[in-house]
């Protein structure tokens, strides 16, 4: 160890802690300044902005305003942000002719929301484009790197409203655009919850749930009307260059592909050489033929987005079938016109210029195929609009998934064609577990209407999750697995397993379920061997230490929206190859019927938010003389959640149960362990009567930390339990209650660590420490 390390290690924790806290307060929670002074190297002053996207997400943007007529909108790569060095580089080198407008995508850095890895991010760019348009820029050029390039590409295709597009290393994180290993690793990191914690802490990027998003899988539709430059390194690790070449083979002169040597990716490619290419590309852009916009930014002071005037000469009447309300169109037209004048006829506004603006308005709403024609060219102009409708939606490629299921997911058809709606539908379908990828092909009919063909590639659907469990007092360390499988016929399988690391014991749950007639039929089985750590989630669980094999068939009938009845039958066999004195097992088989009533509800909104769920459970073994054991089990579980405030909650549970006294030992209730009385080892209390109550207070850091903070997902849970189990011959006594109290830190419902103490007169043992990582900790 080097002397420097020795010195660092010798610093007392009392010195580190205040420094650490000061760092937290100064760095993490500092509110950014509204404006930045001009840097010493000549970059113009930057102005920080907050833009709200159409779906209500607040994103942070930064404008380097050099009072130019044109603006370059820079879109950063995944996990990056506006603080990247390339932004400074662009601001220093391009602001002689272009303003630079950049922003943090949703879920990145100080922008709100969660990232969908290029999916919903098109709405972020849409908001920025709208903002830039209303500032009156003459030309808007989008420059994107990595994911930002992909987002720019898709935005050009779906919303238009840009004059040129420059894409650097467009990475889509799909099997088609990324090399296999990179694609696989990226997918697993980004699509499973396992990657959410490290990404959040290290990069301040908040990953959303992929079930609500999807990936941009098809980049083939390069926008034809928008001049595009793609810059790609020869040996990019994240992008398959062959794929890029294939895309360009089908393009005309609208796209330019520049291959540069090396292995650089995304913003690493932004250097002097790239800049020269970009400048050459921008210099070669053709001017707009008609209705050239001229910036009047010098006059455009005042609040952005509010129409200041609309000339009397600009009276536009719309005719034809419009997919948007006329008032919405004219309102947006007024806003756009109020900050621009149009070359050629600045006094009267040429009809061609109005058509140009109207086309952009329809495009920004996703109606990219709306055609416009001036019917009457004298003021007031009459513009006839025509938007194609979707005639048919055909589905091909699906072998197992029925068409009806796919249609119920995409939910398109019957109305006007909209590129954004189609994109969302494809992403929604792509995020289904049984779907590998979806491609669309749109065909125009003779009458202008559209036929849509969806080509679906299916895959074997599965979900695999990993969790861990470590407890100190009973020396148990285990690894948990969860496996979810969905059959194309909607038959679901869920398997959960906990395997002990040191003793090779295991506990597994298996459930096969299918929904029929809006009810659930389920078949479940439990297998375990010599399990040391028990997770008797419903408290009705055999406590034998050897083998159990059996099954349960249950049907859940949903009587009302929040009331259901589950009826089932079970059968199992108990063997006893090893019997310890404290864990007796009676050999034999058992079978019976089960019934569970599940009630849930909440108080009306005007009362304090209180939601409850109550279950009543009844099990009868051995009807019709089936099996070797005959006993009845009753159990009542009451639970309630009270919202103390927007982020804090109080959880209360009460459980009670009784069995007939003839139940064999392995069917008796067992209390103790992580899910009942965590302060005590597993199987601390055994009997055929039990009572248990718990109270927990969940305090969220979100109440005081910003949603974008690294700390906001942290929760502190203070809890206490009291419970006991006893035999029928005894009677319940409060003196026999065992109690514990503890606290737990939970991060993103994945990382948990806690400590719990036995308390009260009957406390046994010492404090227990536990830690778990994974979506569920068994």
């Amino acid at each position, binding site marked *: 160890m080097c002397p420097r390390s020795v010195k660092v290690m010798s610093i007392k924790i009392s010195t580190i802690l205040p420094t650490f806290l000061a760092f937290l307060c100064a760095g993490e929670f500092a509110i950014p300044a509204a404006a930045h002074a001009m840097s010493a190297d000549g970059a113009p002053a930057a102005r920080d902005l907050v833009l709200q996207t159409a779906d*209500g997400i607040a994103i942070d943007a930064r404008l380097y305003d050099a009072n130019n007529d044109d603006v370059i909108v820079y879109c950063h790569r995944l996990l990056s942000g506006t603080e990247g060095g390339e932004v400074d580089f662009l601001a220093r080198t391009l602001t002689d002719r272009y303003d630079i407008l950049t922003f943090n995508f949703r879920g990145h850095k100080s922008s709100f929301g969660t990232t969908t890895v290029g999916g919903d991010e098109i709405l972020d760019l849409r908001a920025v484009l709208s903002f830039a348009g209303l500032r009156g820029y003459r030309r808007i050029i989008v420059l994107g790197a990595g994911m930002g390039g992909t987002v720019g590409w898709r935005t050009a295709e779906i919303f238009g409203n840009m004059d040129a597009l420059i894409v650097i290393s467009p990475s889509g994180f799909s099997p088609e655009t990324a090399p296999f290993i990179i694609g696989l690793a990226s997918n697993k990191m980004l699509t499973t919850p396992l990657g959410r914690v490290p990404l959040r802490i290290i990069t301040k990027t908040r990953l959303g749930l992929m079930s609500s998003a999807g990936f941009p899988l098809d980049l083939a539709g390069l926008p034809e009307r928008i001049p595009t430059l793609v810059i790609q390194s020869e040996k990019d690790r994240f992008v398959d260059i062959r794929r890029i070449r294939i895309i360009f083979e089908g393009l005309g002169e609208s796209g330019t592909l520049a291959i540069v040597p090396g292995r650089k990716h995304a913003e690493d490619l932004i250097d002097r050489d790239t800049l020269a290419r970009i400048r050459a590309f921008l210099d070669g852009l053709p001017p707009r033929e008609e209705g050239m916009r001229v910036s009047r930014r010098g006059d455009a002071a005042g609040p952005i987005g509010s129409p200041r005037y609309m000339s009397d000469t600009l009276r536009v009447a719309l005719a034809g079938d419009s997919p948007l309300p006329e008032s*919405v169109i004219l309102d947006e037209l007024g806003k756009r016109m109020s900050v621009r004048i149009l070359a050629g006829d600045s006094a009267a506004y040429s009809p061609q210029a109005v058509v140009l603006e109207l086309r952009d308005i329809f495009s920004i709403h996703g109606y990219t195929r709306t055609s416009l024609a001036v019917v009457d060219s004298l003021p007031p102009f009459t513009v006839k609009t025509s938007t194609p409708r979707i005639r048919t939606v055909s589905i091909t490629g699906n072998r197992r998934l029925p068409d009806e299921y796919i249609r119920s997911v995409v939910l398109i058809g*019957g109305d006007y064609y909209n590129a954004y709606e189609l994109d969302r539908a494809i992403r929604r379908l792509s995020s289904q577990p049984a779907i590998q990828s979806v491609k669309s092909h749109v065909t125009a009919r003779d009458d202008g209407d559209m036929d849509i063909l969806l080509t679906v590639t299916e895959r074997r659907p599965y979900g695999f999750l990993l969790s861990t469990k470590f407890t100190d007092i009973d020396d148990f360390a285990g690894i948990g697995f969860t496996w979810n499988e969905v059959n194309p016929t909607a038959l679901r399988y869920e398997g959960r397993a906990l395997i002990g690391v040191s003793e090779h014991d295991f506990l597994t749950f298996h459930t096969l379920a299918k929904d029929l007639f809006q009810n659930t039929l389920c078949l479940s089985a439990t297998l375990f061997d010599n399990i040391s750590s028990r997770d008797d989630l419903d408290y009705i669980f055999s406590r034998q230490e050897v083998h159990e094999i059996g099954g349960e068939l249950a049907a859940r009938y949903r009587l009302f929206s929040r009331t259901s009845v589950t009826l089932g039958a079970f059968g199992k066999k108990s063997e006893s190859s090893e019997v310890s004195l404290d864990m007796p097992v009676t050999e034999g088989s058992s079978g019976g019927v089960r019934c569970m009533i599940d009630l849930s509800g909440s108080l009306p909104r005007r009362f304090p938010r209180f939601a409850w769920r109550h279950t009543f459970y009844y099990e009868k073994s051995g009807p019709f003389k089936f099996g070797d054991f005959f006993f009845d089990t009753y159990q009542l579980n009451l639970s309630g959640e009270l919202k103390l405030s927007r982020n804090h909650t109080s959880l209360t549970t009460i459980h009670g149960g009784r069995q007939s006294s003839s139940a064999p030992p392995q069917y008796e209730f067992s209390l103790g362990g992580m899910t009942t009385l965590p302060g005590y080892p597993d199987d601390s209390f055994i009997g055929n009567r039990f009572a248990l109550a718990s109270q927990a207070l969940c305090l969220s850091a979100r109440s005081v930390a910003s949603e974008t903070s690294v700390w906001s997902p942290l929760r502190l849970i203070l809890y206490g339990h009291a419970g006991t189990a006893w035999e029928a011959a005894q009677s319940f006594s409060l003196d026999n209650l065992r109690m514990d109290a503890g606290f737990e830190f939970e991060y993103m419902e994945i990382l948990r660590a806690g400590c719990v103490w036995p308390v009260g007169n009957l406390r046994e043992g010492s404090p227990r420490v536990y830690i778990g990582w994974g979506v569920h900790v068994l």
Partner: protein
Amino acid sequence: MFCSAVPMRRGVHAIVALFACATISCGRPAGESFSARADYIDGAADRHTLALRFAPILSMHSSEPYHVVAVIGVFHPLKPLIAYHIFFEDDAFLAGRGKAFDHELVWAEYDPVTLKITDALTLWHRTVLRTESCLMDAKASGQRPNIDIQWGQHGPLPSGWRSLLTARPRLELAMHYRVARYINRLPRASAKKPAVSFSGSYDDYLTFTEKVDAADYIHAEDVVTAEHSLEFLRSRLGMTFLPKKEWPDW
């Protein structure tokens, strides 16, 4: 990995407590309204225009005894969701209970980019109902959902509700029909409002032919953005109705 007992010392307690305090005492308060300080809000269309665009078409029974009195459009402050509070003159089953108006709810969810409807839901006797066919019909007919209104009680049923197989509404509708036939024989709480009863067959009970356009009742002053709209509703209609859950996920 914790595989052995960890000594719990006072120093550890102090560090944990300090860390917890630091965690919950630093940072910007959450819940800050960013709309208020946004420099630009994308896709902010006129609320009245949107309320009219997605207003439901009510399909009522030809012998429906009560008329629509008012329709109030309430926008959710955070989601693209509109609650249409529809008020009828009275409820056949509850006439004379002291509340003049029968209060029903239909929700329309829309896409703020395309301005297309994305879902339509109804509150049918405390149960939220939705059907896919109602949504697809709405898309094909000008983005406006078609809602069947139950005779007398005005329980809103999304078109295509016959495909729902749960006890509600399928089984309960038959029960309502039985009560509706003999309701005039039941003792009434108020003699001022004579009881009405249904006289047709069950098939007739489920036939909805009279179209009422909810948009005809929505004026600019009847549109508001609020998560809790009870005060606004009472300011418009007084204490004349029973409040219901305002959003589908409540």
